[in-house]
C-alpha cells in the first residue's frame, strides 16, 4: 500500500502574532514553526496503516520554501519513509497549491492520500478536497474515525447534530480530524534515521491565484467587563443585566 501525506508548515499555535510590514503577511521573526497539528493525525494514520499491513511505502509532500525541510524531517522522524518538497513561496489561494500537489501525486500510484482537515494558520479548509476533485478521486473530509477493508474506506465525520458515515473505494483522499488517533512523538532512533531518509526537492511554479490577501489586522481586543458579584447571590443581578443591558435573553 502506497500512502501519501500532504503536510503544511505552520506557526506554532501558541506563537505571538505580529503582522509584518507588508500588512499582508505575518512577521515570522522568532516564530517557531511546526507541522500543522491536523496533519499529524494524517502522518500517524499513514504510519500505523503501513505497520498494520507490514508492507508499503509512506511519502510526505509539502509545497513551500526550503524552511519546510525541517518540517519534513520531523515527519520522517515520526516514521514516514520519504519526503518531497515542492519548492515555491506558496499562495494564499488554495487552488494553485492543490494543482501543484495533484501534479506530483497523479503519477505516484498512491492508494491513499491523506491531509489534515485544515491548516491552523490560514484555515482554508480546502486543499485536500480540491486535490481529490482535480484527480477525480473520492474524498472524505474531516474523518474522525477511519476503517479500511478490502480496498474500501469507511470514515465517520462529525456534522452538526450527529455523525455522518461516508464510504468510498480506494484510491481515495481522506482529510483527518482530531479524534482519529494520537500522533506518536519521534523517538531518538527515529530522529537519527530521518537524517538519512530521502528528501527530494523540486522547484514548482504555482498558477495564478484568484484569491489575494489585501490586508491583515488583529481583531479588536475585548474589553474586560465587570464582576457582577460573588457566589449564587449574584445570579439574579447577572440575569437582569443579560436581559436589560446585553439584551441577549
Amino acid at each position, binding site marked *: 500500500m502506497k500512502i501519501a501525506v500532504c503536510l503544511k508548515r505552520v506557526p506554532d499555535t501558541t506563537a505571538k502574532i505580529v503582522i509584518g510590514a507588508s500588512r499582508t503577511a505575518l512577521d515570522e521573526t522568532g516564530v517557531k514553526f511546526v507541522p500543522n497539528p491536523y496533519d499529524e493525525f494524517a502522518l500517524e494514520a499513514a504510519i500505523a496503516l503501513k505497520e498494520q499491513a507490514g508492507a508499503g511505502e509512506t511519502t510526505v509532500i509539502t509545497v513551500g520554501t526550503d524552511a519546510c525541510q525541517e518540517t519534513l524531517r520531523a515527519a520522517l522522524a515520526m516514521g514516514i519513509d520519504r519526503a518531497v518538497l515542492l519548492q515555491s513561496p506558496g499562495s494564499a489561494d488554495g487552488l494553485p497549491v492543490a494543482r501543484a500537489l495533484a501534479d506530483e501525486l497523479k503519477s505516484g500510484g498512491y492508494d491513499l492520500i491523506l491531509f489534515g482537515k485544515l491548516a491552523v494558520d490560514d*484555515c482554508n479548509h480546502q486543499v485536500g478536497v480540491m486535490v481529490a476533485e482535480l484527480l*477525480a478521486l473520492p474524498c472524505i473530509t474531516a474523518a474522525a474515525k477511519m476503517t479500511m477493508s478490502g480496498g474500501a474506506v469507511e470514515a465517520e465525520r462529525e456534522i*452538526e447534530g450527529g455523525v*455522518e458515515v461516508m464510504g468510498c473505494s480506494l484510491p481515495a483522499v481522506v482529510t483527518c480530524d482530531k479524534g482519529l488517533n494520537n500522533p506518536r512523538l519521534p523517538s531518538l532512533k527515529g530522529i537519527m534515521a530521518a537524517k538519512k531518509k530521502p528528501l527530494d526537492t523540486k522547484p514548482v511554479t504555482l498558477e495564478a491565484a484568484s484569491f489575494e490577501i*489585501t490586508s491583515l489586522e488583529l*481583531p479588536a481586543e475585548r474589553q474586560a467587563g465587570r464582576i457582577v458579584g460573588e457566589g449564587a447571590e449574584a445570579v439574579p443581578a447577572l440575569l437582569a443585566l443579560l436581559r436589560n443591558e446585553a439584551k441577549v435573553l
Partner: protein
Amino acid sequence: MKVLAVTEQRDGALRKVSHEVLAAARALADPSGGAVDAIVFAAGPVSGMDQLGGFGADRVLHAAHADFALYSPDGASATIASIGAEYGAIVFAATAMGRDLGPRVAARLGVACATDVTALGVEGSVVTVTRPICAGRVLQHGKLTGKTAVVSVRPNTFHPVASGKAGSVAALTVPAFAVRVASKGIRKPDAAVLDVTEASIVVSGGRGLREPANFKLLEDLAAAFGNAAVGASRAVVDAGWRDHGEQVGQTGKTVSPQLYIAVGISGAIQHLAGMRTARTIVAINRDKDAPIFKVADYGIVGDLFEVLPRLTEEVRKIRSS
C-alpha cells in the same frame, strides 16, 4: 451580480443556516440589483422550500434526485458546477457540508474559494471578504478575482432577512454524475442536541467541573435555556470527558453565539480564540484572576457548584414566565 445560495436540508426540512446563506447572498446581489437563486438538494419536497422567497430568494431551484436524501458530494458538486458559471458568486454555509462542497465546486469551476467568511462586500465584479484566520487571532481581508466567487459563511454571523419576494420554485435538471463517495447515513445522539457553532447560547465547561458526571449541571442549564448547546474546553476533551465535537477553541470550533457562558474555564489563549466573537460573554470561576474574566462582559466569582443550580433555576423561571 447574480448569486447562488446553497441551502441545506436534513430529513426533508430546511436547516436554519440556509436563511443565513440567503442573507449573505442578498448582501452580494443587492448593490447591483442582482437576483438570488436558492438551490435545494433533496430526494423530494422539502418543508420550508416555498417560503425561501420570504428570506430573500428570487427563485428556488429544486434539484431532486433519489441520492439527495443524504448529502451527495458528487451529485451536489456536479449539479452546482453545471450552472455555476452563470453566477458572479456562489454562497455556502461553513458547515460540515459547505466546507466539503464549496472547494469541490471551486475546483470544478477553476476558481478560488474563501471559507468561513464573516463579512462580505462587492467592488464591481470583485467580491471582498473578511475571514478570521489563526483560529480567530487574525482577521484576513481578501478579494476574489475569478469569474465566479465561491465563499462559505460562518454560521451565526449573517442574520436572516425578511423579504417580500415570491420565490417561485422551479425544478432543476440534475446532470449525470459518477458516485465516487457516498453517505451511508447519519448517526444521531439519543437526544436531539444543538451544535455549538449554530446555537444562540453556548454553555461551556472546563476542568473546574472536576469530573465528567458534573457536566449534567451544564446540560440542565442548556435545557433550561432551551436554545443552548453544551461546549467544552480542550482540557476536558483531551481527558475524554466530552466529545471533540463540543470543543471550543483552536483545534476545536469557533463559535459566535449571542451568549457564551464559560463555567470553570480559566481561559487559555487557544480557548479565547474560539469564543471571542460571541456577542456577550459570561464567566463563572472561583479564581478572580482567571484570564477568562479579561474577556468576559459579566463575571461571577464563586463556586460553580453553588452558582450553576441557582442560575438554572432562575433561567427556568424566566423561560416559563
